[in-house]
């Protein structure tokens, strides 16, 4: 899980396939939202696919993941079946959180995916604690903690960076800087907009990477992860990206210029990657149609799984508040 990415054909195509899966999954989710199959808040990952896919290449099966309410991309890149995610958004008992969480609270502890957290900054202390447990138990693992640029305004961001650095805990802090804390632009909520530099205050190494370039993301994350795994304590990696869709389905996007959105769309992470394939030689002739049709089948199957799943019984309403009483 260290060093530079190995760019063989299988890996190269897998990165593409995963990004396309996230894109099509999210498009389907948006469609299902408009017809009322999915309710609540829905925060789409479209535009940010290279971040989840690239970073997750450096995260191993023994590592922990703490994510945000915009976590569909991370969940898919972690390998959680699309059907269990779709079923969760339907609110079905077969969802990854049994229908208790919804879009913002995906959990799959078998894959060490510790949520979907919808209080901005609230997941960081939990990531610090998971890493503390690993350190105390001498488990060789890191905790990958995703959060957005909005989170750096929260006290918990600063407290968590300090504590993780102070105790040299294996946390990989991954800041998905999409330039907006919901509707408030970075320069309107931060005095220091160069997020990576905030790590300086905590004597923590940091780096920044173009979050629209999946290969650059993978390489930067592997370097950061190697630093964490080396026992040097936490690392802050800022990933500069952009969401192409609104903050949530309820957002009329009055706060950003259409031209800005178009400029970023010209740097679509999937299109950028496809354009680079010929120069990479071994990916000169990817069968894009085959990838698309495979992904379409996977998304269709996810919807079928969600539709077919049962609802939890209302009689079980107060389950999962406390551990079941064992006699």
């Amino acid at each position, binding site marked *: 899980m260290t060093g530079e990415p190995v760019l063989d054909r299988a890996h190269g195509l897998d990165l593409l396939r995963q990004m396309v899966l996230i894109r099509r999954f999210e498009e389907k989710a948006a469609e299902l939202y408009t017809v009322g199959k999915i309710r609540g808040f829905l925060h789409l990952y479209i535009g940010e696919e290279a971040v989840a896919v690239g970073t997750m290449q450096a995260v191993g099966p023994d590592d922990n993941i703490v994510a945000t309410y915009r976590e569909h991309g991370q969940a898919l890149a972690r390998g959680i079946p699309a059907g269990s995610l779709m079923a969760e958004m339907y609110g079905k008992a077969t969802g990854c959180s049994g229908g208790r969480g919804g879009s913002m609270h995906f*959990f799959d502890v078998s894959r060490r995916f510790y949520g979907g957290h919808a209080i901005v900054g609230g997941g960081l202390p939990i990531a610090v604690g998971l890493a503390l*447990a690993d350190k105390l*138990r001498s488990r060789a693992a890191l905790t990958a903690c995703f959060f957005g640029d909005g989170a750096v305004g929260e006290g918990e961001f600063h407290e968590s960076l300090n504590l993780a650095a102070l105790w040299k805990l294996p946390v990989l802090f991954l800041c998905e800087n999409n330039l907006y804390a919901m509707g408030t632009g970075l320069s309107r909520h931060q005095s220091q907009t160069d997020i990576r530099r905030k790590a300086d205050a905590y004597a923590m190494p940091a780096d920044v990477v173009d979050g629209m370039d999946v290969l650059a993301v993978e390489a930067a994350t592997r370097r950061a992860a190697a630093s964490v795994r080396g026992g040097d304590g936490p690392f802050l990696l800022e990933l500069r990206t952009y969401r192409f869709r609104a903050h949530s389905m309820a957002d009329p996007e009055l706060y950003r210029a259409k031209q800005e959105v178009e400029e970023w769309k010209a740097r679509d992470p999937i299109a950028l990657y496809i354009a680079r394939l010929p120069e990479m030689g071994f990916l000169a002739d990817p069968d894009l149609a085959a990838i698309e049709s495979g992904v379409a089948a996977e998304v269709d199957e996810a919807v079928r799984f969600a539709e077919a799943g049962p609802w939890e019984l209302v009689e079980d309403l107060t389950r999962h508040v406390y551990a079941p009483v064992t006699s």
Partner: protein
Amino acid sequence: MTKMTYRDAIREGLREALRSDPRVFLMGEDVGRYGGSFKVTYRLLEEFGPERVRDTPLSESTFLGAGIGAALGGMRPIVEIMTVNFSLLALDQIVNNAATLRHMSGGQIGVPLIVRMATGGGRQLAAQHSHSLEGWFAHIPGIKIVAPATPADAKGLLLAALGDPDPVFIFEHATLYGLEGEVEDEAVPSEIGKAAVRRTGETVTLITYGGSLGKTLQAADQLAVEGIDAEVIDLRSLRPLDISTVLASVDKTHRAVIVDEGWRMCSFAAEVSAQIMEGGFYNLDAPVARVCSAEVPMPYAKHMEDAALPQAATIAQAVRQMLGAHG
């Protein structure tokens, strides 16, 4: 049995926990080198070392959240918050995470975390170190709230919390730390959710917990001189609440007075009162009465603080009034 202070009883419980379970560690402000702001953890750092007795920065939200994360990661953290007023800085982690993760994950994870904190007034520490907010916390499903009133329970409830798969918050009234009492030498857990009858009587039921137990027993002694035979119930656990012990007593005495150091408005006493109405209304000979703190932030001056808090005299007077009006 050994006679010891409430403070020493907690320390014995902590020592027992640290000795018997390698997953246990302590974390909080000044719990190590300083020895604990109330000297509860005095010399535990020397005995168990800095990995297991961890001084934290002044970052309540993050070290409590790290406790949650460490619990998810397989540890059994015991977090100390210096006073209940400081716990408000960690409310995000308490309410949004500790109480919800089991549920939001559809039962995949639990949070076996213990949080200890000092509560209550009576030490002239004014309006930011003296409040009794355990009633607030008892409002929240997903966490458990206990308030030991004796040295034996201080140790016993801590050991019970250690065996609990869910987050347990222990409220230690700060005036009790020097209180002496008999404590089991062996590790005998108390039962969370079980009230104790501290004095039997026939005329009126006095219901209280934590720091008010001593005052309530004093009041009962005063009343006994006047021929009024009061039963005193120590709730010990606010959530879960042992209402059946309360109702059984009211069934016998037909009168109930609740003594609670929280403010009267929306107090825990209000909840107990409501549950007596719901479950025992037709057994009552008089309306349920409450003796609570005055509706004012805690004043510094001693005579004013005394007037703001329930006292043995005001408890006894409430009983006399009830019997005079309806006796």
